[in-house]
């Protein structure tokens, strides 16, 4: 009996995991750190052949309402789908594997994601495409490499036709109504536990849109500068042709958002043109969470408004 050739196949019954209860590590310590705090249902099947003493195997894993916790992207919940392995020993898969992710929260809650990928090995994958509905439009991640237990990856996200009205809701921006859509592509650097947005630029589509700000930031600003008061009056019913939103910072930490807004208000100075350079320094995550908290949050406004006197601008009061 020189070689033990033959085939074997292994199937699991549907396994149901609970945090604090039955966990994948009960099956094998080799998965520790990979599916931490696992929950939901998983079943797997593998077909092994031993040919000339050389083992190989194919198989699949299917999950339903599956979830786990990760250092890099936070909680992953509601995962459904089936992954085919063309080499179970190497844990590699053919291209085009697809799973749906109910919720993932790297700083901004993303729901109903569809992820297409290929597993290269236990530690490397190719993200083929990932798409989430978001703020009335879509966030789409293009093709990029992903290191499974890695410490740093960069993926490019395209924001497609995000509606300003929905963005105001997602970030619970108080006293603000807005209409119009913005789009743009930007890199997101996933480094350790942080997801950094690197100088994202979202620009309004060419129809432009409207903004109506009726908050109390106006009062504190207007005292400072009569032109600022003028500007805030304009912002109460503003029609913009140019809107550029820049975001830079840590999704789960501090974010700096700057906006360039150009347009006019029919009610102010017969529709004279205004340009706003608005800088918003905020903890994005706090904004999002403020909506979910029962207690109303009294926002601390620290507003600095100053008008930029253009070189040869004649202000309406004085004429030569």
């Amino acid at each position, binding site marked *: 009996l020189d070689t033990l050739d033959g085939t074997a196949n292994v199937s699991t019954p549907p396994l149901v995991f609970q945090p604090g209860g039955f966990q994948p*590590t009960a099956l094998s*310590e*080799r998965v*520790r*750190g*990979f599916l*931490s*705090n696992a929950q939901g249902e998983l079943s797997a099947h593998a077909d092994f052949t031993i040919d000339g003493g050389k083992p190989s195997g194919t198989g699949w894993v299917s999950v339903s309402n599956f979830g*786990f*916790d*990760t*250092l890099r992207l*936070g*909680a992953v919940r509601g995962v459904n789908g089936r992954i085919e392995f063309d080499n179970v020993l190497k844990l590699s898969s053919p291209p085009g594997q697809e799973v749906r992710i109910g919720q993932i*929260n790297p*700083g901004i809650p993303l729901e109903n994601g569809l992820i297409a990928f290929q597993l290269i090995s236990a530690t490397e994958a190719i993200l083929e495409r990932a798409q989430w509905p978001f703020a009335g439009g879509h966030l789409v991640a293009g093709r990029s490499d992903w290191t499974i*237990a890695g410490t740093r990856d960069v993926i490019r996200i395209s924001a497609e036709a995000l509606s300003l009205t929905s963005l105001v809701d997602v970030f619970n921006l108080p006293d603000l109504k807005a209409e119009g859509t913005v789009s743009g592509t930007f890199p997101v650097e996933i480094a*350790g*536990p*942080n997801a950094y947005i690197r100088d994202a630029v979202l620009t309004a589509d060419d129809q432009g849109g409207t903004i109506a700000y009726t908050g109390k930031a106006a009062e504190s600003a207007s005292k400072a500068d009569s032109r600022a008061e003028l500007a805030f009056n304009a912002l109460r019913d503003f029609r913009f042709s140019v809107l550029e939103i820049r975001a830079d910072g*840590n999704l*789960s*930490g*501090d974010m700096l958002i700057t906006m360039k807004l150009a347009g006019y208000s029919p009610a102010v100075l017969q529709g004279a043109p205004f340009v706003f350079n608005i800088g918003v320094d905020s*903890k994005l*995550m*706090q904004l999002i*969470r*403020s909506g*979910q*908290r029962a207690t109303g*949050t009294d926002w601390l406004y620290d507003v600095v408004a100053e008008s930029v006197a253009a070189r040869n601008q004649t202000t309406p009061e004085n004429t030569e």
Partner: protein
Amino acid sequence: GDPQIEAAKDQGVVGERIDGYLGIVDGSADASLMRLVQDINNKRRAAYDKLAEQTGTTTEQVARVTGEKLISQAARGEYVMDESGTWTKK
């Protein structure tokens, strides 16, 4: 804490970082210890996310305050990582 982690801390293989997570001090540890560190860090992040949500703060803030406390509680002779990312022996 976890006995394997405590032993690894005593041997200077693992240490607490200012960002609230465990780190492998000189980058060379056996695979099972690295998996354990990864497991604990995944669970720490989940705990930070939850507390940040309850207190209306950010995950980064909670993780940072925890890191500072854990470093202050670390025993003499253990390694800790400061702001600059370098490991120093307490």
